[in-house]
């Protein structure tokens, strides 16, 4: 078996008395694409928020790239190589596409602390390049993204993730608000990641999409992982049985 890129051991998150995530044991291998599915409130997004350190876990261990990690925030996770598309878009509406793509990791002509001179042309060129490799069409990258459609904005967010992806990509329902054509574009970006051998965790409600894109499906139910199934060993009905609790019961499963 290939190298393990991400592993969680007994990952648990309580919000006060609510046990949102309970003893999650999860493994992701190098180059593997895994889908995380489950009903609303099953703990999928909570799981992602612990891994990306948007929130701090109640207990449990996270191993990334073989090392136990304790990221203090999403920035540290990103610097370690985990790129995330969050459910709520982390975009600045009044900035143009290059500024959003490079938000927090700008290119400079010269450094002078907070008054460093931005390399606007360099960022614009690399943006166009990134959009080309992801086949995302944005009519005018110099417009503030406020004026763009939901699909275009989502494509910007995903292009940002794909362009900077290094070790692991996490996407939290990337196509939830998109039309048919835009969804196809996003799925193409994801296939591109697969070709580049970049591992991914995809949270999705769309089982058609999940079966199309990933190698393995992990089912969450009531804060626990109840199934981890290879795509070719299961089918839609099977997954739905786990999601709804017909199968799997309450017993946690190592994923």
């Amino acid at each position, binding site marked *: 078996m290939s190298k393990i890129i991400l592993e969680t051991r007994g990952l648990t998150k309580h919000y006060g008395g609510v046990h949102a995530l309970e003893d999650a044991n999860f493994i992701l291998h190098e180059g593997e694409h895994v889908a995380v599915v489950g009903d609303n409130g099953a703990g999928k997004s909570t799981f992602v928020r612990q891994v990306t350190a948007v929130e701090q876990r109640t207990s449990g261990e996270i191993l990334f790239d073989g090392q136990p990690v304790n990221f203090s925030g999403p*920035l540290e996770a990103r610097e370690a190589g985990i790129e995330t598309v969050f459910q709520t878009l*982390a*975009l600045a*509406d009044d900035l143009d596409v290059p500024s959003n793509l490079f938000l927090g990791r700008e290119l400079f002509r010269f450094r002078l602390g907070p*008054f460093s001179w931005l390399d606007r042309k360099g960022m614009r060129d690399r943006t166009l390049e990134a959009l080309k490799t992801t086949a995302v069409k944005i009519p*005018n990258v110099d417009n503030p993204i406020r004026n763009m459609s939901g699909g275009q904005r989502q494509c910007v967010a995903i292009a940002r993730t794909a362009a900077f992806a290094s070790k692991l990509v996490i996407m939290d329902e990337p196509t939830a608000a998109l039309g048919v054509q835009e969804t196809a574009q996003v799925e193409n970006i994801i296939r591109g990641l697969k070709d580049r051998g970049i591992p991914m965790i995809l949270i999705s409600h769309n089982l058609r999409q999940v079966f199309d894109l990933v190698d393995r499906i992990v089912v969450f139910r009531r804060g626990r992982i109840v199934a981890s199934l290879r795509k070719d060993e299961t089918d839609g009905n099977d997954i739905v049985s786990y999601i709804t609790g017909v199968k799997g019961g309450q017993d946690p499963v190592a994923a």
Partner: protein
Amino acid sequence: MAEATHGVGGLRYDPAKRTRAPEWNVLGALILIVLVFEILNRMQGGSFLFNMRDNVDAIFNKQRLDIMILQVAIVGIIALGVTQVIIIGGIDLSSGSVVGATAMIVMSFAQTAVVNGNPNPKAIFGDWAMDLPVIVPIAVGLACGLLAGLINGLLVAYTKIPPFIATLGMMVSARGVARWWSNGQPVSFPTESYGSLANGDLLGGMTFGILSWPGQNPAVVFVLLAILFHIVMAYTLYGKRSYAIGSNEAAARMSGINVDRHKVLVYAIAGLMAAVAAILLTSKNLTAQAGMGVMYELDAIAMAVIGGVSLAGGRGSIIGTVLGAAIFSVIISGFTSIRLDAYYQEMVKGAIIVGAVVLDQWRQRKRARG
């Protein structure tokens, strides 16, 4: 680059039809307002900014223009600092009071020992504080403004209280400092070098006498600072961070921007600008009074808002604020020129501020409708 002609979903996209920068609208409004006042003045048999009487050579009514520019420059300097605060989604209500407090403190370190052969009748400190090199009051003043700005910034960034409340507190406190400093007495009689800060000929000095604009140093400083602020906001990381924070603070945070530290820096620079204004104002008037700078904060905010800086944060520019400052000052001089009573002027000023904000809201709704 290969221009994409189709958007997502194959929608037609016309690259020629781009959103026009709102600054052009502000410039148009400025020209329109100047013309309106010119016509109103002609109807009364006078003139506003343009001289077309046979006996005068100059195109411009220089006297009125000079007064106008001086008026706009000092508040305009404050408006530059306030603009970047509004762009990060904040507000600074303290700048007028910071001008007042800084003015009193600065002047106490700028006094001269002997006035017309007598000891300085308004002396605040003993001999040790008399006839100090001009750099001392400047440094003290900048430190005062910086301190006030830092307190504002730390309150906003780390206590998470709304900027409106934090700077309202500073507004009241700083005015208290101004009144307490000399028990309400004016502080006067600065050294000659201090007086020349505003009344000298900085432009002449800078251009080795090729150009000259005596007595208009506040305007020269305003223009220089406006250029500096424009460059910083448009071309550096500082500006990018500011717009990002005002546009979507959560996204900025998630992108790794140290939002809190940046806020402190922005408010500190705003305080610094209030101090620059206080130094130039006291130097111009050769005296400091506890009531200096009253309402300047609102005038500065008005300049920014008129210039298209959105109170919601994330949108606006230094160019907009400079144009907004020009409009503001044209309107005030315009009312004076047609002999509108000062009381009416304040009423109209209030209406203009509200009108500019309404216009901004309207613009946003229109944009949302597409």
